[in-house]
Structure formats: structure tokens, C-alpha cells
């Protein structure tokens, strides 16, 4: 064993190093700037991770964790909450070093996944990154939708085509990679269905068991998808918030690394890559406005953080992007507080919406989401279920993108904001489409027209064609 100060090491050196804090023979190391190294082969890392508690430290551009409330600093460990005030911890980086080492060109030569921004992600050991293709999804110019809604320029960030068909692959990729670094024997999450699938998929690639805790009443396809990856799926008789409280207790009394509990400071970092990509895909320019489907507020806050970080490291110049929240009426605690001008988030005790993926009654990042919206002069709306489904259909019919209700919330919110005059015609708007329609068939199917049933004869089709005729368009001979 060698004792060494990690601050002098460059993490990009291609060596396999891991760091003990607790082993059978050594005492826990309180100051993790002084660490023990051993060299192990990649092949043995999985076995090793299951045997040892490991702590990742300082080999990346990440410096430390800092409490968002009181500013107290912590080493980069498996901790998410300030011991002094219970505030959430966030990763801080050496932005000067990133600015020196990272350029638009170096990013462009990286992988076509979120890991093209690895210097701005809190990972120490590149060998442990679990990359199954999350991120760097298409930013599509939505001319039809823009025309329909009366906008000059609108873009769809289509995150419904990630590996497990939602944006949650981004934070899950970071969380599972980080769990490997920490040597966690298992990963877990609390989920409304998208995260459970994303965690389960990344965990299976990492050969880690995954415990996914979900509330009752989720969509069947999200459940079967999670199970297909081999996760232990635990359905709890209660709301998302009940599940969240239970899992928080489990996280603090077990060795499971929960993505959105004890891994949360690292996990949320994955989501900010949406902001990075949007800017890169717009030629390193920030948009004028981003509409964010919002549940816990973590994604919305991450978008703000991502934009600020890009400016901090010199990848974009001045930006003035407005960030707005889209929540379903049946669970809209952040938008309600925003529209009331209040800082106090009143939890929704019994969320009631077809939009299951946004049904979080007590949003952990609600306060910070409000901060982000107000600081950027954003706004928000809470469309009802009918308007949400209309949004799903509108996006499908105009742009050929089939989204789950969360995407419908974003479309409906955009429509309402334009109608209310809160978005100008010439604002360049980006809609975050965070999940795929195939994951929420039950909710969407009801509002669609039924298929036409005919017998297999040309006469039957001709009869039908006469009924379906489009004025001025001759599309079937004889119809």
C-alpha cells in the first residue's frame, strides 16, 4: 500500500486505482485526502466492489460536496444530506481547471452520449463508467408545432429515445457508475416508473442488484420493463412520497446505494447534461426559453445549474434563458407556489393525474426549482389531464414524436403560455420531451380514435375510404 495525496494526481492517467475507507484491517479514514491505494485489474473490480467499502476521491475535476443551505463542505463520499442542517449537498468542481482543459472541440470528439461532458460529471474512475448510450439525443426543429402554436422557432429535445426511453438514463448512468466507485453491493431507487427502468438497466450492465421501490398504480409497461432488466421491484401501498420516506429510512440503515437518496448529489448531475446538449446543438448558444416537465424540481434546477456551469467554464457566453415549469394540474405544488408568489411548497397529499411520472406531491427540490424559475424570469403552468392528452396528440401529429403524458404537459404548458402572452413570437423555445409514449399506453389510448375494422375485401375498404375522404385530396381511385 502506498500513501499519497490525491490532489497531485491527474485522473485521466489510465490506471486502476481504488481507495479504501473500511476494510477488515484498516480503520475508517476520516480525512480522505489521505488515502490508501491498491492497484487492481478491471476484471477484479466487480468482485472487489462487492467485498470492500470504497470511497472515491478527488481524481476528477470534482472537488467536494457542499451544503446548498449552510455551505458546509464534505469530502466526495456516499452522503447526500448536511449533518448540520439537513440541507442537500451538491458537487463542486474546479471550474478553472475545466476551463483550461475542456473546449468545444474536445467535447465534439467525445462519445455521442452524456459522457462527452465527463469533466463536468463527478466521476473519478473512467473505467467504471456504465455507458449504455444515454444522452446526446436529437434536438429537432419543430416547424410544424411552432406554426401551429404561433412561434417563430421551437425545438424538441427528444429524450424519449434514450436506452430505456426516458431522460432518467442520464442520472442513472452517473448514479450506477458512482455506486461502482463506492463499491456499493447494490443500487436502489424510488421511482414513478422511468427511473426504475433506467436504474435497472444500468445496474444489469454493471452486474449490480437493483432494488426499485415504486408506488402502486404505475403503468404496466414501466413495471414489465423494470422487471425485464432483472430488478427487484417493490410496490409499496402508498403514494410516491410514502415510498420515498420508507426508502430514505432503508438507505440510511442498509448498504444499498439509492440513486435519488444517498447518491443524490451525484445522480442529479446527470440531468444537467440536457442543458449542455441543447446549447451544443444550438451551436453553443443558449435558447431563450426552456419548458421543463417538473416533478421533484431536480431536473429544472439541474438545467439552471448546467447553463451556469457552461458560462463558468467559457463554453457559452452571456445567456438569458428563461426556465419554466410544466406540472400536471393534479400534482402541481411548485407551479401553485410560483403563481401564488410563495416560497412555501404545500405538498399534494393525494396526487391525481394521468401523468404518473410527474406525480410527486412533496418535491425535494421544489424550493430550488422556484429559485431557478424566478432567477431566470421563467414561469409555469399546470394543464389538466385533457389538455395534457391534447398535448401528447399535438406533438405526435405535428412532429411525429410520441411522448408520455409528461411530454404532453410540456406541450400544453407552452400552448397556455403563448396564449397568455407570456412567450413572445420570436423567443427561441426548447421543449424537453422526457419520456416515451409507449411507456404510458393506458393513459393515452383512451383519447385516441379507434382503429377501423373491415373484412379483407376491396369493397369494404372502398366504403370506408368514402367515409374518410379528405376534401380536395384524391387519395384512392374510385373512392
Amino acid at each position, binding site marked *: 500500500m502506498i500513501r499519497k495525496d490525491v490532489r497531485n494526481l491527474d485522473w485521466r492517467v489510465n490506471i486502476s486505482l481504488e481507495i479504501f475507507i473500511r476494510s477488515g484491517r484498516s480503520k475508517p479514514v476520516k480525512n480522505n485526502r489521505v488515502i490508501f491505494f491498491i492497484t487492481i485489474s478491471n476484471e477484479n473490480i466487480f468482485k472487489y466492489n462487492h467485498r470492500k467499502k470504497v470511497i472515491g476521491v478527488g481524481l476528477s475535476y470534482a472537488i467536494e460536496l457542499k451544503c446548498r443551505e449552510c455551505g458546509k463542505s464534505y469530502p466526495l463520499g456516499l452522503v447526500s*444530506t448536511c449533518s448540520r442542517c439537513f440541507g*442537500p449537498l451538491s458537487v463542486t468542481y474546479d471550474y478553472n481547471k475545466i476551463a483550461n482543459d475542456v473546449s468545444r472541440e474536445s467535447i465534439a470528439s467525445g462519445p455521442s452520449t452524456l459522457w462527452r461532458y465527463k469533466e463536468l460529471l463527478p466521476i473519478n474512475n473512467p473505467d467504471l463508467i456504465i455507458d449504455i448510450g444515454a444522452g446526446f439525443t436529437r434536438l429537432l426543429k419543430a416547424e410544424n408545432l411552432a406554426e401551429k402554436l404561433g412561434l417563430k422557432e421551437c425545438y424538441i429535445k427528444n429524450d424519449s429515445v434514450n436506452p430505456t426511453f426516458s431522460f432518467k438514463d442520464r442520472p442513472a448512468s452517473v448514479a450506477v457508475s458512482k455506486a461502482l466507485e463506492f463499491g456499493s453491493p447494490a443500487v436502489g431507487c424510488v421511482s414513478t416508473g422511468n427511473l426504475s427502468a433506467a436504474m435497472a438497466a444500468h445496474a444489469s450492465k454493471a452486474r449490480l442488484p437493483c432494488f426499485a421501490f415504486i408506488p402502486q398504480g404505475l403503468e404496466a409497461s414501466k413495471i414489465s420493463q423494470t422487471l425485464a432488466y432483472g430488478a427487484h421491484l417493490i410496490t409499496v401501498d402508498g403514494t410516491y412520497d410514502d415510498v420515498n420516506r420508507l426508502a430514505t429510512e432503508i438507505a440510511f440503515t442498509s448498504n444499498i446505494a439509492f440513486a435519488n*437518496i444517498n447518491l443524490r448529489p451525484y445522480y442529479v448531475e446527470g440531468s444537467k447534461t440536457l442543458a449542455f446538449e441543447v446549447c451544443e446543438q444550438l451551436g453553443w448558444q443558449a435558447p431563450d426559453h426552456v419548458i421543463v416537465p417538473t416533478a421533484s424540481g431536480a431536473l429544472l434546477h439541474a438545467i439552471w445549474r448546467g447553463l451556469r456551469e457552461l458560462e463558468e467554464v467559457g463554453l457559452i457566453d452571456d445567456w438569458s434563458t428563461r426556465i419554466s415549469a410544466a406540472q400536471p394540474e393534479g400534482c402541481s405544488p411548485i407551479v401553485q407556489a410560483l403563481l401564488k408568489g410563495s416560497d412555501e411548497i404545500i405538498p399534494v*397529499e393525494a396526487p391525481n393525474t394521468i401523468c404518473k411520472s410527474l406525480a410527486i406531491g*412533496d418535491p425535494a427540490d421544489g424550493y430550488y426549482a422556484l429559485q431557478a424559475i424566478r432567477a431566470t424570469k421563467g414561469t409555469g403552468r399546470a394543464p389538466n389531464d385533457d389538455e395534457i392528452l391534447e398535448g401528447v396528440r399535438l406533438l405526435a401529429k405535428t412532429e411525429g414524436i410520441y411522448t408520455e403524458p409528461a411530454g404532453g404537459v410540456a406541450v400544453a404548458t407552452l400552448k397556455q403560455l403563448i396564449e397568455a402572452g407570456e412567450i413572445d413570437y420570436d423567443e427561441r423555445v426548447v421543449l424537453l420531451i422526457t419520456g416515451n409514449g409507449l411507456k404510458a399506453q393506458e393513459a393515452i389510448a383512451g383519447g385516441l380514435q379507434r382503429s377501423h375494422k373491415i373484412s379483407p375485401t376491396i369493397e369494404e375498404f372502398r366504403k370506408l375510404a368514402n367515409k374518410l375522404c379528405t376534401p380536395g385530396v384524391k387519395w384512392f381511385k374510385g373512392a
Partner: protein
Amino acid sequence: MVVKVNVKFSAMIKNVTDADAATIDVNGETVNDLLAALIRRYGAQFEKRVIDEKTGKLRRFINVFVNGRDIRNLQGLGTKLKDGDEVRLIPTVAGG
């Protein structure tokens, strides 16, 4: 007026209270009175952890549940307590 309530502490507060649960006699009838009783019982360390020194109010991330309901959906710190109520103190910055 004294009410006797059962308080359950989350794992994150347990290191101050040294117990998962306690039965507390509250001089008064509100959650605010209960907090005062808990501070008396568990001392400055507990107070520092749950009360924001700047505002004198409960810290933003401490959630209090009375018989399973968040006090933000009741009358906040003024929520009335009665004998036998179960109160949970849960710091939550999780999920999403």
C-alpha cells in the same frame, strides 16, 4: 394542559436522540409545544439540528407528520395534538 404523544425519529436524527422513538409529555397542545418539549429533553444538539438559527423556525428539510399527515397540510406548527398521537420527524431531501 399536558398531552402524551409518541414520537418516532428517522435514522438521521437518531444519532442525537439515541432512540428510534420516545413517549413525550407535552406542556401544551400543539406541534410547536412538542418541539419545545423535545428540545428540553434532547438539549442544544437537537435544537441546533432541527431549528434554523437564523429564522428560529423548523428547518426547511425537517418534515413533521402527525398520524401520517404532513403538518404543512394541517395547521403547520400550530397543529393540535391529543393523547396517543403518533408524530414522526423525518428529514427528507430525496426522490425525483
